[in-house]
């Protein structure tokens, strides 16, 4: 029993990171129909910039905030320089643009931060907390708490604020949103900033546990993408559930079946789910207009 609990703890922790990445995918997808494969690089940058700022003498909270702000700014720059000019291009071209951006950011990070693995101290120490025979790191609670807090904040933003509703309106129908006076370009900018910021936050919170290096982004991007698709692309609730589900499947497979095939399990489940529900768990059934 305590064994199962231990696997669940580790699953929920990685799952929280995947859920944050999946949320980032969802926000950008809703605003622009682009699946941003550079999402994982935002996670990497969150951890890397925090490390660099901390090493340069900044206190940890300040370093973390500067990492999130800088990454969000980079997200905005990416939208302005790479995504907006390609508006209307086919899906494959957009995939290649975001993968190009991802390779570019990786290359830049390799020059700026080197090829070493970096980390910084956990926020509330390294003493594991014992719960019913299993242990959990205080940093894991930070990660899980962060994911839940972001989800609640986003939910409030999208349902209670005018700006949030403008974003929803834009994702529903861009032209109609423009017609009622919504500045859709600003919505795009905001979405990229939000999404990059959330990715960076995931990196900031997870790095003391997972460590970081210039090339960790792609793994996060794949898992986050998988989580978002499992939940149903474009649905924030789906992203959250999908992300946590991928984390849990991974941890349970690693614990009970085979640690070498833990990455495979998630994709087997996705193939199975898509077989029965081609729109993912929570996806809307879309009808194409002919």
């Amino acid at each position, binding site marked *: 029993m305590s064994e199962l609990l231990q696997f669940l703890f580790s699953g929920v922790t990685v799952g929280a990171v995947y859920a944050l990445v999946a949320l980032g995918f969802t926000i950008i997808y809703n605003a622009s129909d682009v699946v941003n494969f550079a999402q994982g690089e935002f996670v990497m940058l969150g951890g890397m910039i925090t490390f660099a700022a901390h090493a340069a003498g900044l206190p940890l909270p300040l370093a973390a905030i500067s990492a999130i702000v800088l990454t969000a700014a980079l997200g905005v720059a990416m939208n302005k320089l790479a995504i907006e000019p390609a508006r209307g*291009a086919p899906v494959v071209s957009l995939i290649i643009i975001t993968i190009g951006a991802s390779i*570019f950011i990786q290359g830049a990070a390799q020059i700026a931060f080197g090829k070493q693995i970096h980390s910084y101290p956990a926020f509330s120490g390294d003493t594991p907390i014992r719960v019913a025979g299993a242990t959990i790191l205080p940093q894991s609670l930070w990660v899980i708490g962060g994911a839940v807090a972001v989800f609640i904040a986003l939910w409030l933003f999208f349902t209670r604020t005018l700006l949030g509703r403008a974003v929803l309106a834009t994702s529903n129908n861009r032209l109609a949103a423009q017609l009622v006076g919504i500045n859709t370009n600003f919505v795009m900018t905001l979405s990229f900033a939000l999404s990059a910021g959330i990715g960076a936050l995931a990196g900031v919170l997870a790095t003391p546990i997972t460590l970081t290096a210039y090339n960790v982004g792609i793994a996060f991007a794949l898992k986050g993408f998988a989580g978002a698709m499992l939940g149903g692309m474009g649905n924030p609730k789906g992203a959250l559930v999908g992300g946590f589900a991928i984390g849990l499947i991974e941890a349970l497979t690693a614990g009970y079946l085979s640690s070498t095939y833990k990455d495979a399990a998630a994709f087997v489940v996705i193939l199975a789910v898509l077989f029965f529900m081609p729109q993912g768990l929570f996806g809307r059934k879309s009808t194409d207009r002919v």
Partner: protein
Amino acid sequence: MKISAKSATLLVLVVLVALSPLLFPSNFYYRVGALIFVNAIAVTGIVILTGYAGQVSLGHAGFAGIGAYACALAPVHWGIHPGLALFLGAGISGVLAYLVGRPILRLHGYYLGVATLGFGILVAMILTNERGLTRGPDGIDVPDLGLRALLGELGLSLSNGQFWYFFTGLCMILGAWIALNLHDSPTGRALRALHGSEVAARTVGIDVAQLKLRAFVISAVYASISGSLLALQNRFVTPDVAGFMHSIEMVTMAVLGGVGSVLGAIFGAAILTLLPQVLTVFAEYEHMVLGLVMILVMIFLREGLLPSILKKLRGKDE
């Protein structure tokens, strides 16, 4: 004289393959050339799947992995000749593509992307983890094809680089010829019709599911043969051949060059194979430049390099 686009493409390819060696300063260039041709074969398959039928795959390297490991394993375990192992690999890839394709080709756009991505990752993981069979991430030796020795006995002695250059070049031209024939066949027209609009294609009586599946299987066979040739040429293969980055590379080559045309996609394969060789002068900035090139081409030359350039040239003529 008016020649068809098909003959023109084949003529260009034959001339380029035959005449390029005249400009090669050293033997090394034969190797780079052969690498371009091997990539071009996989990319031709992507043209059929993505360019003709409009379906996206992010996992085609999985089939390349199957082709490559078929040539590494079948000769050792079953005593099959490496040349036949290539066909065995292509057969396995085709059957697997048929079985996998049936359920996942119902998916659209990004959902199809993630399903194929999952398939590719599964293949790569099996190749990496089944150490008993594949020797894991360190890679495995591949037996000699033996064709060069045979040619030598017949009095045609080529260096290793030369042999692979011309052999893969021939395979590429053959692959391009088949793809071009397909383009103008009823199947090709039906594929392009469903690319334009699936619903419209269905209303005129096209069996959409069946056709997508056919395109998927054909492109899988192309990827598999490309993987086999790569393995046979290098006499060595690692699971990276089935990796996610290799899948992305195939799609990028095709789209960058111009996924709508065989010649464009092959041009893309040439550019992206050469680029890393050229970019070594940028040393540590290599990745940044590569990423930048990908973004800029997709923004400014949307139809891909070759079609955009041709359009510019024609515009000037008129």
